């Protein structure tokens, strides 16, 4: 069996870890919505692309830097997603898991096709100097955008944790996640908590989309593969655990990079490795690494 050289392995390990940060950012919203609302948000991948297309158009018309444009994108996405959740998903809560799930499925179909109609099926990427630069770390070349994404992962996870633990809205969301019925009885506005959760999830997705646009490029149909990567991260880490999402993302990044660095495996199997790790964990430990028991 051929082993990759020590340097190649170290490179794979470090870039994988940082790439895992990107995975975490793209999965954070999915994890939040999944954990609080018990909803698989099948439109999550397209919400990522909303961020990417938004940044692309802003850059085209105003010359705004992609990362700076987040200052505009995040509030706008939040303010659109909140009423959208209240109107489209709110009335379906309590009607079983299928109705809201399939509604997000419908939204995903609509958005993919709207993207094609409005932006054409071309592949695009977001342009910035830091999207292509790399930095040296102990003799290893690292794409700068991976390192930036890693920073975003840590910052967003920490900020979400503080928001959930220290604020009134956060407390309501935690109560709704724990037991929506009991929370409602105790005076928690569960509908609003769900709306805020969903809008936060959509905003995080948009941030992830901008990072994806910078690091990899995107087209109207690339949402699905990011949705699946997001699932892998969320399930690896465990339902309803922010720490799990962070660890799950990093683990997946490392597994894919290191796996693909073996000469007999190759880069084409990168996603396959990720999905297999995911399926095995799911079969062996369905609650994930940090999942709640019961």
């Amino acid at each position, binding site marked *: 069996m051929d082993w990759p050289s020590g340097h190649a392995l170290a490179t794979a390990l470090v870039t994988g870890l940082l790439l895992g940060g990107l995975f975490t950012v793209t999965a954070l919203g999915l994890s939040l919505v*999944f954990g609080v609302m*018990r909803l*698989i948000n099948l439109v999550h991948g397209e919400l990522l692309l909303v961020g990417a297309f938004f940044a692309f158009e802003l850059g085209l018309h105003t010359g705004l830097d992609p990362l700076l444009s987040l200052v505009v994108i995040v509030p706008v996405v939040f303010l659109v997603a909140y009423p959208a959740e209240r109107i*489209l998903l709110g*009335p*379906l809560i309590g009607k079983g*898991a*299928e*109705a809201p*799930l*399939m*509604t997000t*499925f*419908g*939204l*995903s*179909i*609509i958005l*993919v*096709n*709207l993207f*094609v*109609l409005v932006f054409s099926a071309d592949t695009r990427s977001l342009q910035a100097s830091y999207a292509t630069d790399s930095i040296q770390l102990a003799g290893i070349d690292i794409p700068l955008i991976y390192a930036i994404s890693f920073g975003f992962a840590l910052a967003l996870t920490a900020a979400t944790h503080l928001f959930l633990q220290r604020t009134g809205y956060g407390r309501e969301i935690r109560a709704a996640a724990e037991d929506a019925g009991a929370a409602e009885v105790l005076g928690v506005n569960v509908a609003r908590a769900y709306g805020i959760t969903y809008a936060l999830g959509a905003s995080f997705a948009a941030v992830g989309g901008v990072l994806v646009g910078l690091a990899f490029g995107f087209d109207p149909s690339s949402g*699905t*593969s990011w949705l*699946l990567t997001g*699932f*892998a991260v969320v*399930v690896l880490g465990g339902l309803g655990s922010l720490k799990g999402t962070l660890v799950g993302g990093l683990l997946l990044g490392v597994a894919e990079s290191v796996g693909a660095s073996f000469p007999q495996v*190759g880069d*084409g*199997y990168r*996603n*396959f490795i990720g*999905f*297999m790790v*995911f*399926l095995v964990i*799911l*079969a062996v430990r*369905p609650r994930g690494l940090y999942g709640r028991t019961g």
Partner: protein
Amino acid sequence: MTPPSPSQALGGSLLAAAAVAAALVPSFAGDYVVGNLGFRMLEYAALAQAWNLLAGYGGLVALGSGAFIGIGMYGTAKLTLGAGFPLIPALLVGGALAALFALIVSPALFRLRGLYFVIATLVLAEALQIWMFNWNGLGGSDGLFMTNAAPSPSERYYLALAIVAATTLLLAIILRTRLGISLRAIRDNEDAAAQMGLWTFRTKLWAFMIMAFVMGVIGGLQADYLGKIEPGGAFSLQWTVDIVTIAIIGGMGTLWGPLVGSLFVIWLGERLANHPETHVAITGAILILVIRFAPYGIWGLLIRLKDEASGRRRRSRLA
């Protein structure tokens, strides 16, 4: 809430009438309507009906249809190409391979409940597609060409019609047997069903394998129609998107829903053939509206209309 249905005798004769009407189509319609439009409607009706068994009656939402269709496609292609099988035996073996795959993955899949099951099926199909893109054993990303002469438009129409009829009949029979009752009990409350002594694993497995078999057979038929298959199309998520929208818009958990849904969605697609993106976006919007306002789809609406009309008649007679 129980699904709407016409009385059993009426339902049976209606289905028979629909089958006869469908069988007469090739006697007056042109090649395009028979071999393409009608063929597609029947294919999707069978696929949606198979999915309906698991999701509509068993409550198991599987989003990995592409896996079974793709296996049926490659199985049939390999058998007709390499082993020189005639089409119909090849279709059956292709279906059996898909069912075998369902059997192999079932121990892992059925450990998962609800949302986890949904995700796992989605990822399973996607992983299989990536595998087929990279593995060169079955043509890799180039796929396979099929040299067999595809059946004539009316032949493939009747084949598809036979599969739809057999699937629908099978469902109608299953629903009256112990298997069908167990399946619905599991949908309504899996823990209670297990407590009552139902073999939940075995019940789910049967439904899962039947679904996989039908999807594999249709996959084989589609492969023979296309003449060339490749992983992108064979294992595509698009299969799931189409099947799920058709089943839900038509009416999940009803025997007629998938048939009506296929008729409607494919017809709509034909009307908007020059604007495929608009068609799919509109279908998505209809899907959302149906979920919100018509839980049993178009079929449920039709039954409700009929009931209201007959209710009015009865009332006016009384007055």
